[in-house]
């Protein structure tokens, strides 16, 4: 089992949090602590392309993150994950409600 980690890249325009590994309940404390300091960024990119698994708790954390970022008046972009990870978002018909992009954009 691959432990969940977050790789962070700060740019002048945006902050990218690249989520790596299994995105489930165990990810909560890790993501929360990273998120806390990234909330002020005008654009936050949550990159799911290296997430190997996401369950409903992962989805809750994602929706919570999106709500918090947007709640601060900022933009939250989600880079779609692979197969089963993206399916969790597709099944809930969330692709149209969240800002989901195919791949990591070059700039905001």
């Amino acid at each position, binding site marked *: *089992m691959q432990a969940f980690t977050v790789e962070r890249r700060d740019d002048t325009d945006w902050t990218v949090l690249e989520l790596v590994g299994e995105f489930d*309940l165990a990810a909560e404390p890790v993501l929360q602590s990273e998120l806390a300091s990234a909330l002020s960024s005008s654009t936050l990119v949550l990159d799911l392309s290296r997430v190997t*698994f996401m369950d409903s708790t992962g989805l*809750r954390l994602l929706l919570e993150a999106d709500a918090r970022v947007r709640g601060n008046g900022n933009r939250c972009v989600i880079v779609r994950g692979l197969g089963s990870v993206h399916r969790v978002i597709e*099944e*809930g*018909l*969330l692709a149209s409600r969240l800002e989901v992009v195919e791949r990591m954009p070059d700039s905001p």
Partner: protein
Amino acid sequence: MARDESTSPVPIDELNGGDASIAGLDDAPFCFGVVDGGLRVTYANAALRLYLGADPTGRPLADLDVAPDMLDAVRRAVGGASIAALELRRGDTHHLASVFPVKDAGGGLGGAAIAFREVTSWVEDRRRAERLQTVSAELSGAPRIASVAEIVLGQGREVLGAAAGVIALLSEEGDTFEIAAMEGFGERIERDWGSFPADLSTPMGDAVRRREPVFVDTPEQRAELYPQLSLPADTTSATVPLIVDGRALGALTFRFDGAGPIGSEVRSFVIALGNQCAQALDRARLYEAENEARGGAERLADISVRLAAASLPREVTDITAEAGVRVLGATAASVVIATGDELEVISSLGYAAEAVDRWRTFDRSHPSPLAECIRTGEPIFLESRADAVARYGDLAEAADAHHAWAALPLISHGRVLGGLGLSFATAAPLTAARRVAITTLAAQCAQALERAMLSNDIAIANQRLEAALLAGNMGWWEWDEASGRVAWSENLERIYGLEPGTFPGTYEAFLDLVHPDDRDALMAHASEGLRGDGHEFEHRVVRPDGRIRWLDGRSKVRRLSDGSAAGLAGIAIDITKRKLVELALRESDARFRGLFESGVLGVSGGCALVIDEANDALLDLVGYSRDDLGDRLLMLDRLMVSEDGSPIGEREWQLLLENGWLAPHEREYRRKDGATVTVLFAAAMIDQASGRWIGYALDLTARKRNEAALKFLADAGDLLSESLDYQVTLQRLAELVVPRLADWCTVVVLEDDGTMRNVAVAHSDPEKVALVRELEREYPPDPDAPSGSAAVIRTGRTEYLETIPDELLVQVSPDEKLLGILRDLGLRSVITAPLTARGRTFGAISLVIAESGRSYSPADVQLLKDLAHRAALAIDNARLFRERSAIADTLQASLLPPLLPAVDGFDVAAEYVPGGDGVDVGGDFYDLFSTGDDRWAVVIGDVCGKGAVAATLTGVTRHTARAAAIEDDDPVHVLESVNTALIRTETGGQLRFCTAVVGVLEPGAPSVLSLARAGHPPPLLRRRSGDVEEVGGRGTLLGVYDDPELHQVAVELEIGDLLVLYTDGVTDSWRNAGGDARLVELLRSLPADVPAAEVARRIRDDALRDRGGVGDDMAVLVLRAIG
């Protein structure tokens, strides 16, 4: 209405001259007169003369009693105008007049002719007709039965001058009239006449039966037809049936004061009013029913959300009582909870203060509807006062403002929790729709109440557990290895010096708090414990303020249902105090040696083996007198014994002689009376040649005993915290006590039924234990015994007998046989201490000395009290642990259907595996229930939220789905209702959502399943052929967006087809082993005709095998069409 026309005047001579016969006017049936140009009457016919009461001929018109309008008209006629259809009113009478000019002989204008007649009844008729039009317009705008009735009765009284009016409606069964509105009958009649049987001989009954109006024109007629009606003598009545499209709705009656037949105009008006009333009532009834259905359902959905979110029993009952009044239209409502035989009114609304006071509590056997429905478990509906009085007599008589009652038991999981009582002051409240709503409310209340009672219990259990742990300086923890999560009780946080709620909850955070020197050893112990059966380890922690505490941690492995280890759960005890005592002991030992070396204590002097000098302290210590000393009875040989009792004085003397001194050492002295005392002894040779020496001895008995007691209590504390099974704990405790502190040890506990049970007996001789067990069977313990364990349990006070007198044995022995046995046992000294925790004494522990021959001292009493206190706390903790986990299990169970119902043509089965959080309740649920007419709703879902909120949301979701599906079983509607309910549920800002599938099944050939899906994994349909397909289109998950996009699809199920609904806990178990595809493959590979239960079990087992560590909840629901 007057018409002015210019016509050629009639020649006056044709009319004038008194020759009335010319015109044939004198006998005309109307009044006729002629005036001349000076408005003087020149002719009046008979009718006019009669009308005026005199002959007006020759008098000026202005002198007569003529209406100003008439005078004016005549003036104009004299001037040449013709005026027809002039309406005139004189008092209550109405006239219609025509006035036209007449010529004089010369052909000029000579005057005017007047003709008029009384048209009072005609005008009244017309007025009524106009009024009916107005009424009709008013009625069409009246939305409610009550407003229709008010308009109709008001018009009847105003237009017809009726003294009283009543409208009664037939009940649905058509056998009862319910009064809808009543005016003018007087208070008494209006109160007593709520309803009456349709077959009673009344004008209303006859009107409806014959479908025609009934007019009672005279008192005689009434006395003959309706002898039982007691109405004032001079009254008449008109009754019409209220009929629409051939359906009789009820009847309308007006009563008139004064004798005499009812005029035909009145009759026709009443009939017309009755027709309009019937139409309007029918409309109002439909409107009300629709409104009630729509409004009622909406509000019931609100109520169900509020009920599901209520966390205290009191909130649930308050909401229910409020719903009974505000939503179901009851005048008053009350909710009682049954506790044993007592029924307690928890919430009530709408009752008078005296009634509330009077009915705070009452007995289950009380002859009231509420008590009866709780006794029988069956709802009671009382349609009318007559019904209520017949069944409950005075009770119903007393409730004079109410006409109907409903009493429903609150039943959940087969248990009657209490009852819901509703009283109605409105007529005919218990319609079929209302009954369904009442029953639904009671069912929802019961479910919510059960959950709230359990939540309440679990909260109390948690508080008690925390309090107990606090008292024992303990805390509990749980560690889930896979996620690295560590849960702590608040008290553990306090022990670690943290503010409650601040422990971060990870294994790493925990290790940070452990003393660096103990960290590696602790980790090694924990991982070894995980492979084995648990661990035990004493270690130090460093509090944030730098202080060090010693903890004793012990755990048991927590296992998944497949037996693999998921983590550890255990307790930690703060043993810092004990450690400090140990350190203090070592220190005091050193100090004592110093004291001894200063030569303060017992001194003896002697020559070789004989002691010839001794101070008082030494003599006291060994129990010899000064005379004995003189007689040279004190010999080293006699005093000094080894542990096995053999004399060693000679050996000691040789050592002393050889070395010249003996270093301080512990030694047993045998006293003159045979008892032994422990002393610290040291000696030195004074004169080698004569063999003279001097020795020092210090009594160590007291210190020894303290040391033993401390060691013992430490041992006992360890032992007590080892097992959560109190019987095992007590037996081990008894064995620890014997033989160190007692020859016998027995522990008696008080059972729930008040009997006492001997749960532990220890004696070094197993035969004696068997003897006690046998005696206990023959002589069961008497809970009322004046002394011994029973008395200690009753009083909670310790009993201590330094010596047991023979009289006591005689007193407690009912016969010679037992007395003989007790005497043979040689019981000498006894202490019995109570086992008391949280103020309740639930047992007693007894220590007895027999053959070893010593007696207990007050110090022993203190020791046993201390021991009993610790044992009681440990037992109580164990019990609370058990209670807490049992409650959690029950709470979870209450969120799932207890048993799947039998569905014709289907084989159904479900499996549910809770997630790893132990006492927390998971978010997966499923449900299968009838929505009526052989249609079934099947629901599965997964609520995502945390802790207690998840439990609330699961309750909201499941209950809302039920309420919504019963209201309208369209799957999209059900999901939308759940979405709304979830959005409305307060979660304290926490994000939550739910994924769900709702299907509606219509069994048949083929069966049809309509289904909608909201963010949930698609159900799988395995055809008999082995093909597996996903069912249902995508839909927005619920609880986040207020405009979910949901679609419904329908599939046909043929015999042998298998529908599998599941939650992602199942497929997530295979996250590294195929995921969703794994389930498809499993279903494809199933042979045909595997029973649903077997399919569900296989899926569960397969998932459990692959789920590593602690998993999510999983739920599987399988339906197999079997035709």
